[in-house]
């Protein structure tokens, strides 16, 4: 692991979709123990910004840096220390939650034994669905499997796109606690959400995407 301080920063980011510019001139620096909540209406580019931060897509202009280095130079380190949950859960419907977790860990080059996987899933309230294929789980339960996989990753930086979607009240409370523990333990998180999320006491910073919410429907 690099000795430099864990910082995620982006400089003068510009993102376009086809001809249309989503945002430009985005600057931010996030350090260990901080979370970044990205706000903005539908279609303003929140997801696009998150995908730029993961390195899955490339900005039209500007750059993203991890520990002070450009992403494409440090992608191996970055991908080891970062975990992403997008709109899609990234779990296989034909496998059980335990198999999904273990496979994801192996692909990332870690080992995870069955007991560890089980512990994580029980922690997320999936104790009763351990050996069912994910196909028969509900949307919210599948979301929880994805979150369990996030915990198993031991990543320093969490990038979460609408993590609360599909979760019930207990699930939301659970995720809030996990996020707080992660941030207070020196971790970092970047997330978007339309639902209220209470992370009082933790160091939360916000960033608005696409300027003030401008809706043509506003009266």
């Amino acid at each position: 692991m690099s000795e430099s301080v864990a910082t995620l920063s982006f400089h003068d980011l510009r993102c376009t979709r086809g001809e249309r510019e989503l945002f430009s001139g985005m600057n931010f620096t996030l350090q260990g123990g901080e979370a970044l909540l990205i706000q903005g209406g539908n279609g303003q580019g929140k997801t696009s910004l998150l995908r730029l931060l993961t390195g899955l897509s490339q900005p039209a202009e500007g750059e993203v840096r991890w520990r002070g280095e450009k992403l494409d130079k440090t992608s191996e380190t970055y991908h080891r220390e970062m975990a992403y949950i997008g709109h899609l859960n990234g779990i296989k419907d034909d496998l059980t939650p335990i198999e999904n977790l273990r496979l994801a860990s192996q692909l990332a080059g870690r080992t995870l034994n069955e007991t560890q996987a089980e512990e994580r899933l029980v922690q997320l309230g999936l104790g009763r669905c351990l050996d069912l294929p994910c196909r028969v789980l509900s949307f919210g339960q599948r979301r929880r499997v994805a979150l369990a996989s996030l915990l198993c990753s031991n990543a320093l930086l969490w990038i979460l796109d609408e993590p609360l979607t599909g979760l019930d009240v207990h699930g939301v409370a659970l995720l809030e606690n996990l996020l707080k523990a992660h941030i207070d333990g020196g971790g970092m998180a970047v997330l978007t959400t339309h639902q209220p999320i209470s992370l009082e006491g933790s160091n939360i910073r916000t960033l608005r995407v696409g300027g003030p919410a401008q809706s043509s429907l506003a009266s």
Partner: protein
Amino acid sequence: MLSFLFTVIRRDLMLAARRRGDWLTSQFFFVMVASMFPLGIGPDPVTLKLIGPGVVWVSALLASLLSLPRLLAEDYRDGSLEQMLLTPQPPVLLALGKSLAHWLIYGIPLLIISPILGIQFALPAEAIAVLMLSLLIGTPILSLLGSVGAALTLGLRGSGVLLTLLILPLYVPVLIFGAGAVDAAMAGTGAESHLSLLGAILVLTLLVAPWIAAAALKVSIE
């Protein structure tokens, strides 16, 4: 690095084992297409022997093509593809692993079924052996080239048809040398030259195709 490659292959084999229906469709298709020709043309052994190698090879191409959408499209749809691209391993290994898994799942069974089809076309035992050998060298090329097409057409509307138009022309050399090897063996001129050219194509695609597929993946996933 190698353990990542093996994990990708093991993962796909495991998923295929959970979905045997999908897997069998491709093999049945292969047998059905090849069996239509003797029914349509008639049972004259001379004609059958003449068209046999070509028909079996064309059927193998089509069966391989039919299974290509499964190579990446499902992983793309459920988001596991982007998760695999976010692992610390290079995407080239992912592309290589996916193609090799595709070959093991869909290519090897074609190889095993082919002698039965050979008998259907009244091919002599020697020609059947060459047919199997040509399929052994040829089918991995189909999977490797197919991974490029599958990566390029990922997430596009009507990707199935586009994939066919894109990939079939690339399959032509494999078809020519594959079927040619069997013809040459039957004509008594020796299949070595055809098989070694097929081997050369395999080495070339093995070296080049995963890189192109990886680059195409990165573009498609954006």
